[in-house]
């Protein structure tokens, strides 16, 4: 890690233009005189061990800046596998790239794709979908729960089990994680869906 002084040249602080791996707004810390995460003796030993065993060990404080770069220590934190598996790293997946799913509408000649992560909730999603397929629809897609007695359309989605589900039943976060594609049903199919729903 460079000393801070080097970055001030001719009165200008060049840190702002420096290319780094750190998150914007975070400073590259100075290398600490005493490694703060371990006892001194332990740190040295650890370096030797890393060579001889090739195992991942906790990184030193100065390189553990970006949380995503932290090495995963086996069996740490000490929580039962059962509990660990109950909370899969959904966040990590979603953060990686946009959550693009195909959107089809019955009768439309081509499909569209939308990024589910962009929307904060069902209302925004439905509005976006209306706008997207506006040119193909004659009637209005209902704004209330995707289905009301007057309209002819219903917004459904295919979940990770492959089942066709009505949009709006489950909390938004759960919906995003299980939605694989969206489908706007029209006309008689909507009546079938509604009948099944209330039987």
């Amino acid at each position, binding site marked *: 890690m460079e000393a801070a002084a080097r970055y001030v040249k001719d009165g200008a602080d060049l840190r702002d233009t420096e290319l780094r791996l750190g998150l914007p707004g975070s400073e590259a810390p100075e290398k600490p005189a005493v490694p703060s995460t371990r*006892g001194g003796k332990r740190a040295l030993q650890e370096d030797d061990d890393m060579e001889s065993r090739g195992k991942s060990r906790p990184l030193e404080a100065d390189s553990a800046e970006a*949380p995503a770069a*932290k090495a995963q220590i086996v069996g*740490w934190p000490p929580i039962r*596998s059962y509990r660990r598996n109950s909370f899969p790293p959904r966040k990590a997946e979603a953060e990686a790239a946009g959550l693009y799913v195909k959107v089809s509408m019955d009768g439309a000649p081509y499909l569209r794709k939308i990024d589910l992560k962009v929307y904060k909730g069902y209302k925004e999603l439905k509005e976006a979908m209306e706008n997207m397929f506006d040119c193909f629809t004659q009637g209005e897609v209902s704004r209330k729960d995707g289905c009301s007695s007057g309209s002819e359309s219903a917004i459904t989605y295919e979940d990770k089990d492959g089942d066709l589900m009505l949009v709006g039943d489950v909390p938004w976060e759960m919906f995003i994680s299980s939605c694989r594609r969206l489908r706007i049903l029209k006309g008689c199919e909507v009546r079938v869906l509604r009948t099944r729903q209330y039987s």
Partner: protein
Amino acid sequence: MTYFPEEVVEHIFDFLSSHRDRNIVSTVCKAWYRVERLSRRSVFVGNCYAVRPGRVMARFPGTKCLSVKGKPHFADFNLVPHDWGGFALPWIEAAARGCPGLEELRLKRMVVSDESLELLARSFPNFKALVLVSCEGFSTDGLAAIATHCRGLRELDLQENEVEDHGRQWLSCFPDSCTSLESLNFACLKGEVNAGALERLVARCVNLRSLKLNRAISVESLARILVRTPHLVELGTGSFTVEHRAEAYQRLIHAFRKCKSLKSLSGFWDVAPRCLQSIYSICPNLTVLNLSYAPAIQGADLVKLIRHCFKLQKLWVLDCIGDKGLAVVASTCKELQELRVFPSDIYGTGTAAVTEEGLVAISSGCSKLNSLLYFCHQMTNAALITVAKNCPHFTRFRLCILDPGKPDPDTNQPLDEGFGAIVRSCNDLRRLSLSGLLTDTVFLYIGEYAARLEMLSIAFAGDSDKGMVYVLNGCKNLRKLEIRDSPFGDAALLENVGKYETMRSLWMSSCDVTLGGCKALAAKMPRLNVEVINDRVESDEMEENPSDMHKVEKMYVYRTLAGARNDAPEFVDIL
């Protein structure tokens, strides 16, 4: 007492409820040994490899309740390779031969096959209760066998097991004549069950008091079940996914109002915060609440709920409750005895949720607190000293600072003084887990003050062999010691070899113990099994004959009367 008839001695022994007391009286004289062994009904085997199953059944032919534990505790955290051992089948076979009157079987951290469940189901006509905790190796087919053949089954309790889903029909295998169930817990099953069969089952089991559903059970089904089981005391709700406007939700609220006996709630996997209102009517009676599987509930909603729970004795939550939420717990739950705060952010994306402040708040409000499991981002010596003063009754104290080896953030000091205060103040402390930056000093304190300590867990702590030696020489009631990633080597391991025969087991991984040290221990102590567990990852690098200087990655030492076990996989060397 030799002039008392045996029946009288036996009757006196009936008053001894603990295994340890019965073990002690059996060593007084041959007559007492005989009376005790024939009248023992409940047998506890803490390490399945410490004694042969046949020997246990031969000594205690009248066994009605058998409890066996398998893998070492660190297996919970994936530190023990998958097929290390801990098989249930030999125990069930031996019981089938020697104790056909068996009524209850409790297994923890063992490998239980469908074959062994089928054998169990057919071998014991009076079988009443099966409790499996953190086990694996079986599927719903094994459960089907239990349901089919165990007439008069009272309890089927599956806690946090890995169960393979072979379909939903197992529950339908309970015959229509089965009305004896008092406790049914299948919360850990991933697959669906036949909702109709479940509803009929709970309806005809009029003595059902504990029911824990799995995530696949819908709220509609839950509502129907609750209507039929108004006397339930413990409920695990299943996913609790419902829209608050839905009819099912209204029915659920109505059903909850009828359940006047509910004292314990868990489940809530996918509950939306708003739907927690449905249980407000039950909260004033709750003594146990487990919300630790509900990450969607944030601090504010948790707090609203907990304000109603003033009789709470046991609370399990996620750390999104926050320090402020814990302050509310402290002011509301004056009867609190056990608190567990689990991390919601396991993968370290860095949202600080609870700190030492929350723990201090709890300690000042909940004077009856005796059991703690607390995952946090930081801890200070000052906080621990305060906690020690406020809560001298801790029997279990497990603190996990998520960043290994982290010092007191205020002073940059190790946490020796903080934990020292805990062991000095809590004279009844039986279990302790350490974390944060710690030197040998903390072990000096533990060795000196933790006289009743039975189980100690150490990770990323200590400076030298002295640390481990303080503990081995000091804690006279120590039964289980488990250490990972700490600089303890052969000198510490071999300092007090006799100690290990007074303990159940010692686990050391990623420490400085060498193969030579392990061999020396094994040579000195023939009644210990010294297992060297080689990680498969490493076995490519290892030569045919690793030198004695080679550091051992994982070592498990335990006292045993059974000698080296014959079911060890190839990556385990028993020295």
